[in-house]
C-alpha cells in the first residue's frame, strides 16, 4: 500500500463523479439525451465542453435511441464513446443495446438506476438495467459515488480489452447515489489517461487473410453490422459469450491494477464479500444498499451473530464461481432484489443465485426479498429483519415464505 498515488478529495454527487471520470478518460464522443436522474451527467459534461476543458464531440441527440446509435457508430469508427441514461431512456435504447454488443463496440454507459413506468416514477430501483440483462452488455453496480467514479474509469479499460470488446454499463442508484454529495478521491487526468491509455483498435483477419483494423477505415474498407443468417449468426453469438467469459478475467485484472494504483479494490472486482468467511447467515445485494447492510452486519456481529454480506458488483458476466466460493460456508442466504420479474417466482438476482447454488454441496436455505421499488425507503430496522428471518429459518430448518416484500403495504 506504500506506493499508492496521491489523490485529490472532491465533494461530488454520483452523477458528477461519473461525468468527471468520463472527462478524465479522454472520451472522444459523448452522444446523450437528458433523463432524470442521469441529467446531471450530461449537464456537467456539457459544461466541460462549453468551457473547453475536454476534447470531446458532444452530440446532443433527439432521443436515447439515437444516442446509443450514434455512440455505437462513433465507437466502430474508432472513437472512445460514452453515454448515460436511466429508466425509460434505457428501455428506448433496448434495440440498440443488442446491436452495440453484437457489433463489439466498447461503449461505456452510466445508468442512474431508476424505476420503469407505469405508474411514472423517477426514483431509484434496478428495473431498468435488469430488463437489459441479456443485451450482451457487461453490467456493474456501484455501492457509492467513489465506486461510480472508479468504475467508469475501469469500464473503458475492461470494455476495450481486445479479448473482451464489449460495451459496459455502470449502474449507480438513482438519487441515492446520483444526487448525493460524497467525498470522492480523484486521480489526476494524467494518471487516469495513463491507466486507460489511448484506445487501441485490434486487428482482425480479412477475407484476403490480411490484418485490418477493426473499425470503419477508408484505407481498409470493412462491412460492419452485416446480415448473417442461419449459417453464421449462431457463431457470432457464441463469440459474444466467449468475450463475456474473458471479461471475468479482465474485470479482476483491472480491479487489481487499479487497486494497486489507488488503494481501492472492490472485492475481486466481481463480488465484494463482507464478513463472509465464518458467516452462517448472509444477505446478497447490489448497489448502494450494501452500505447500510454493512452497518447492520457490524451490529449483528457485536451481538455475536455470525452475519455476512455479499455484494454483487458485476452482474454480467455473472460471477458464478466467485459467488459459489464466497458462499460455501453460509447456511442461510437472503437475496435482495430491487426489481421484479413478474410471474417469475422472485427477482432476477434471486434466480441467478439459486441457479448457481443448485449443485452446491452445502445446500443452503435461500430466500428472496423484493424491496425499494420506485425509490421506497427501506430503513435499517426493516433491513435487519432479513437477518432475523434467516436465523429463524436456521432454527426451524424450514422456509415458510421463500419470497417476501420488504417495506410494502399489503
Amino acid at each position, binding site marked *: 500500500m506504500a506506493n499508492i498515488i496521491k489523490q485529490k478529495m472532491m465533494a461530488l454527487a454520483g452523477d458528477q463523479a461519473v461525468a468527471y471520470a468520463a472527462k478524465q478518460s479522454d472520451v472522444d*464522443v459523448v452522444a446523450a439525451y437528458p433523463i432524470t436522474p442521469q441529467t446531471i451527467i450530461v449537464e456537467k459534461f456539457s459544461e466541460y465542453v462549453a468551457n473547453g476543458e475536454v476534447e470531446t464531440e458532444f*452530440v446532443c441527440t433527439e432521443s436515447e435511441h439515437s444516442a446509443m446509435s450514434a455512440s455505437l457508430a462513433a465507437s466502430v469508427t*474508432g472513437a472512445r464513446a460514452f453515454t448515460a441514461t436511466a429508466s425509460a431512456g434505457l428501455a428506448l435504447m433496448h434495440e440498440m443495446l443488442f446491436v452495440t454488443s453484437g457489433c463489439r463496440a466498447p461503449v461505456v454507459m452510466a445508468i442512474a438506476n431508476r424505476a420503469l413506468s407505469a405508474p411514472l416514477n423517477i426514483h431509484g430501483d434496478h428495473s431498468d438495467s435488469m430488463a437489459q440483462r441479456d443485451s450482451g452488455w457487461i453490467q456493474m453496480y456501484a455501492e457509492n459515488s467513489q465506486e461510480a467514479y472508479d468504475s467508469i474509469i475501469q469500464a473503458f479499460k475492461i470494455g476495450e480489452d481486445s479479448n473482451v470488446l464489449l460495451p459496459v454499463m455502470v449502474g449507480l442508484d438513482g438519487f441515492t447515489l446520483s444526487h448525493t454529495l460524497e467525498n470522492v478521491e480523484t486521480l489526476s487526468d494524467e494518471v487516469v489517461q495513463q491507466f486507460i491509455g489511448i484506445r487501441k483498435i485490434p486487428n482482425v483477419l480479412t477475407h484476403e487473410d490480411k490484418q485490418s483494423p477493426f473499425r470503419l477505415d477508408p484505407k*481498409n474498407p470493412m462491412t460492419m*453490422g452485416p446480415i448473417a443468417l442461419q449459417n453464421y449468426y449462431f457463431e457470432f453469438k457464441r463469440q459474444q459469450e466467449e468475450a463475456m467469459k474473458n471479461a471475468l478475467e479482465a474485470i479482476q485484472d483491472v480491479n487489481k491494477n487499479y487497486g494497486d494504483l489507488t488503494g481501492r479494490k472492490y472485492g475481486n472486482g466481481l463480488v465484494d464479500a463482507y464478513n463472509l468467511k465464518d458467516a452462517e447467515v448472509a444477505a446478497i445485494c447490489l448497489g448502494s444498499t450494501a452500505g447500510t447492510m454493512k452497518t447492520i452486519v457490524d451490529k449483528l456481529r457485536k451481538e455475536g451473530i455470525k452475519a455476512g454480506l455479499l455484494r454483487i458488483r458485476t452482474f454480467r458476466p455473472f460471477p458464478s464461481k466467485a459467488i459459489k466460493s464466497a458462499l460455501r460456508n453460509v447456511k442461510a442466504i437472503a437475496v435482495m432484489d430491487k426489481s421484479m420479474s413478474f410471474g417469475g417466482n422472485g427477482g432476477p438476482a434471486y434466480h441467478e443465485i439459486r441457479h448457481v447454488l443448485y449443485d452446491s454441496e452445502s445446500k443452503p436455505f435461500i430466500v428472496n426479498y423484493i424491496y425499494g421499488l420506485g425509490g421506497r425507503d427501506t430503513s435499517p430496522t426493516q433491513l435487519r429483519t432479513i437477518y432475523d428471518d434467516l436465523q429463524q429459518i436456521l432454527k426451524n430448518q424450514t422456509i415458510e415464505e421463500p419470497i417476501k416484500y420488504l417495506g410494502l403495504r399489503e
Partner: protein
Amino acid sequence: MTAKEWKFTSKDIANKPDLFLSGHRACAGCAPATVLKLVMKATRGPTIVTEATGCMEVVSSIYPYTSWATPWLHTAFETAAANASGIEAALKIMKKKGRISKEHVDVIAIAGDGGTFDIGLQALSGAVERGHDFLFLLYDNEAYMNTGIQRSGGTPHGAATTTSPAGRAVPGKLEYKKPLADIMIAHDMEYVATASPYYWRDLITKVRKGLEVEGPAFLHVFAPCPRGWRSNPAKSIEYSKLAVETCVFPVWEAVNGEYKLSIPSKVLSLAPQRKKPVSDYLKGQGRFRHMFKPENKALLEEVQRITDKRWQKLLKKCNLP
C-alpha cells in the same frame, strides 16, 4: 473540383471503379441497386456509408460476402442518420486529436422510404437540426419491399400493397404520399434535391453537390421496384422516366430553400403539352391495376388531380407560371 466544374462523360463514369459491387442479391430489374451503383460513382474521395435496414442493406451485406468496397455500417432500421452523426463526430474529433489522417472523409447515410418517411424520420430530423456533415440518400421504392410490400408514408395514393390491398370496400391506399423533400427544406437545409435514375447524369451531379455541402444534404431518389410494383423488371428505368414525364415525380433541387426545376422537369414547365397523363405511368403497374376498373374511375381522376395540384404548387415555388 466542384460539381459545377465536374465535366464527366459516360466513359468516365464507366471507368471509375465501383464502390457498390455487382454480385449482390437484388432482384432482376431492381432500380434501387442501380441507384446505389450510380450514387457511389459520384464520390469524390474517402467515403463511409451507413445504411438503414432494408432491401439494399440485406442484398449487399449477406455474411460472409459484401458488395461494399468502402467502409460500411448497418445497425438498425431507424438509425441511418443517427449513425451518420456518430461517424461524423468520431471522424472530426479523431482528426483533431491526430488519431487519423486529416484527409476529408464523406459520410453517406442511405435508407429506403420506410427508413426515411416513417421509422427513421425522427433521427433524420435530429441529425439535420444538429448540422452534421453528411448526405442522406433516400431510395424511394414506395413501400416496405423487404418485408413483403407493405404501405409506407411514401406509398402513393391508390397504390395496392399488402397492408393497403385493393379490396371490394377500399381501393388501395387512401392516404397521400408525404411531401418529404419539402419537410427537409423546412429544416433550412442548404441542399435538398430529387432525382430519378433514368436521368443518371442529373442524379450523379446531385449526389456530388450534396457531398460538397459542409453540413447536411438530402437527396430523394425515385427507385422503381418491379417485385413490389408488379411491373415488368425490364421497365424499371422506363418507369423512372415516365414518373418524371407525368410529373408524378418531378426532379428539382433547392439550394438554401430556393426551388429550381432540373432540366427534365423544366422542359415540361416550358412545354406543358409534353406533360403526359398519369395513366401512362400507372398502367402496366400491377399495384395500380384496380384503378383502371370502371368503378374506380374517380380514383384515377383523383391521382391526376393531386399530381397536377402538386406540380402547380412546385411551379409556384420555382417562380414559374
